[in-house]
């Protein structure tokens, strides 16, 4: 691939974990700080950039591919909050076709359209759907399209399981020029043990936490207004959390190849935590010290 223009960052994580919310707030914070930002939603739902562009209609890249017409960048992109360029890859309706191939095709198409040469971004964020289930979903971290990936995870086991799967994919592709891991974005942190669980997982896998994002009503409220937290509640504490996260991501050059846990290891690790939490909830005092 030709010289990359800007930093290309892929954001992964289990379905519904907060990828789009977090990515959009990072984009908004970066744009607010004066950077040129592109956010590309790599998800057939095509809802990644909703809060950046006030839920306005935006035709997806693949919609135009389906129609078979000649495609112009203007048709498939729109400028949102503070000039963030919003693009949605789109994809097939659920249950037919091949969404993985769709991501591949739309990323190729954007390159053919000279998107990066034209827009000259400082940052490009790829918001990639759900789990890495097949080769197609690994496209953004393969072939040198991005050089860094972040994974959004809560302390729920299935979210960590998905993060661990992404680590496996990075581990596989990094040696041949694929992306490395920037860190884990700990989302929906509530009081108690959730932070400790994520900390423990990152230390076991040789990775680190890029930032902790509280579970907050402000996020949901802003979403209802069709806006990011940065735009709707710029003075809130939550907005600062996203700004700090964005700053960290902008500056962080400490990229690693993670050491994912094996299936058995992950199970044992989860069980240990299960015991600790059980003891904690049932009032065994020692549990708190363990944590």
């Amino acid at each position, binding site marked *: 691939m030709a010289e990359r223009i800007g930093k290309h960052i892929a954001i992964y994580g289990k379905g519904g974990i907060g990828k789009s919310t977090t990515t959009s707030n990072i984009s908004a914070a970066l744009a607010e700080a004066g950077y040129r930002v592109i956010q590309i939603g790599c998800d057939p739902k095509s809802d990644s950039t909703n809060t950046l562009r006030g839920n306005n209609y935006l035709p997806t890249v693949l919609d135009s591919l*389906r129609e078979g017409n000649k495609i112009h960048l203007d048709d498939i992109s729109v400028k949102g909050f503070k000039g963030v360029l919003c693009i949605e890859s789109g994809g097939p309706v659920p249950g037919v076709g091949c969404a993985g191939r769709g991501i591949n095709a739309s990323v190729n198409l954007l390159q053919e359209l000279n998107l990066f040469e034209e827009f000259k971004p400082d940052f490009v964020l790829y918001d990639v759907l759900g789990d890495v289930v097949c080769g197609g979903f690994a496209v953004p971290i393969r072939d040198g399209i991005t050089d860094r990936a972040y994974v959004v995870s809560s302390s729920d086991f299935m979210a960590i399981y998905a993060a661990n799967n992404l680590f496996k994919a990075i581990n596989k592709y990094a040696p041949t020029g694929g992306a490395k891991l920037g860190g884990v974005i700990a989302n929906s942190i509530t009081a108690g043990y959730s932070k400790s669980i994520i900390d423990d997982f990152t230390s076991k896998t040789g990775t680190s936490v890029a930032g902790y994002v509280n579970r907050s009503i402000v996020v949901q409220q802003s979403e209802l207004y069709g806006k990011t937290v940065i735009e709707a509640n710029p003075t809130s504490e939550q907005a600062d959390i996203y700004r700090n996260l964005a700053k960290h991501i902008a500056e962080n050059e400490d990229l690693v190849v993670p050491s994912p846990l094996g299936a058995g290891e992950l199970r044992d690790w989860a069980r240990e935590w299960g015991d600790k939490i059980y003891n904690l909830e049932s009032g065994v005092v020692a549990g708190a010290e363990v944590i």
Partner: protein
Amino acid sequence: MQTCVKSPRNGCALHGVLQTVQAINGVVPIVHSNSGCAIQSYLSNKSSGLDNTYFTGQNVFSTDAQERHIIFGGASRLREQIKNTIKVVNGDLYIVLNSCVSAMVGDDVEAMTRESREQGETIIESLTAGLHGDSHYGYESVVTDIIKKLPLVVNIPEEKNDKLVNIFGILPKEDIYYRGNLAEIKRILEGIGLSVNTFFSYGNGVEEFKNASTAALSISFSRWGNAPAKALEELYGVKNVEFSNVPTGPIEVAEFVRKIAAELGVSSDVVDAFVEKEEKEFDYYYQGVIDDFYNEAGSKSLAIVADESVAIRVGGFLKRYIGADIKTIIVTDRVSKKESSDDSENDVLNTIANEVYYTQDGKEISDILSNNNIELVLGSSLDRNLANGKKRTGLDISFPAYNKAIVNKSYVGIRGALTLLEDYLTVVKEDNHAKELELLEYIGQNVG
């Protein structure tokens, strides 16, 4: 373990499916694939002088799926192609064929054919995709599919015909002389008063498939015929008998017709009269060339490279009738079926040749042939090509056979066996003559 096969001779399962249905009169194939799958099959058959049925080459209907049909699913493109095909050509049976991309993406091909059937069209599907196996498997699976799915679109007759037999296991184009071979087997069976469904002939193939259920017996001439024969047995109780190869030579033909006659209660008078007549015919011509064999062909060491059933019949015949010295047999169609290596076919092969190998790898085959001091190769054109551009002497009995026109030649039964003798002897004589010339030239240059 990963292996790399050099110059494989077998196409993918879709190619097997396609070349099989192309050989059935009345069938219109519709290939749901990306561009290239169907033409690939055409090109390989064309170079073998084999491809000229009605819906071949540029005339194959295909969805030519593009990237957008993969991303969004290709079912509606297929629906469109089905409609258009039915609009422009009349067929007795339309068959939608599947390919790797469609299978991987999981297009609901069946829903499209069902929809078309509900509109009254005579259409079925075979979901066998290229990635399911090789071309032999393609034959097996599409013929089985046709038998199983035909009741969805036509009324299957109920009455039985106790003189009708079905023939399976002679694969269109894989057996390069399939047309002539089927015709000769048909002639033989008709000789004892039977009627025959060969399915691949100038008759109405679809009609024959329809009537297959009414037959008294299915005869399978190779392992690839067993699955369709069993399907008929399960669905309609048509008994089946399996042979490892097609009878070639008078002794084999006599044994074969006696066995079939016993199954179907054909009177022994009829059989005896037929066998006697055939033996006389064979002997008459055989006597005409037998001296030539002793003089010219006695000590040639030869190798056979062919599908299992072809190797058994050609090798068995040459060994029995002219005492050929068969050093090596290389079986090329046992790559996708993992049978144990000690079944009865292996025993038979071991009685014919000193050594038996199983591979379709061009390099491996070439090495085996070079290492065994083979003078004559009976195989495909690939096996006769030498690295230096020269050709090994031999005879085309396997796919692919380049630079050859094949009309209705047969190498089985009685008449086909005589043709095989004739062609074999011709090759031997030409080879001997060429060697004589070389020798004379050498003497001319070096002596006196």
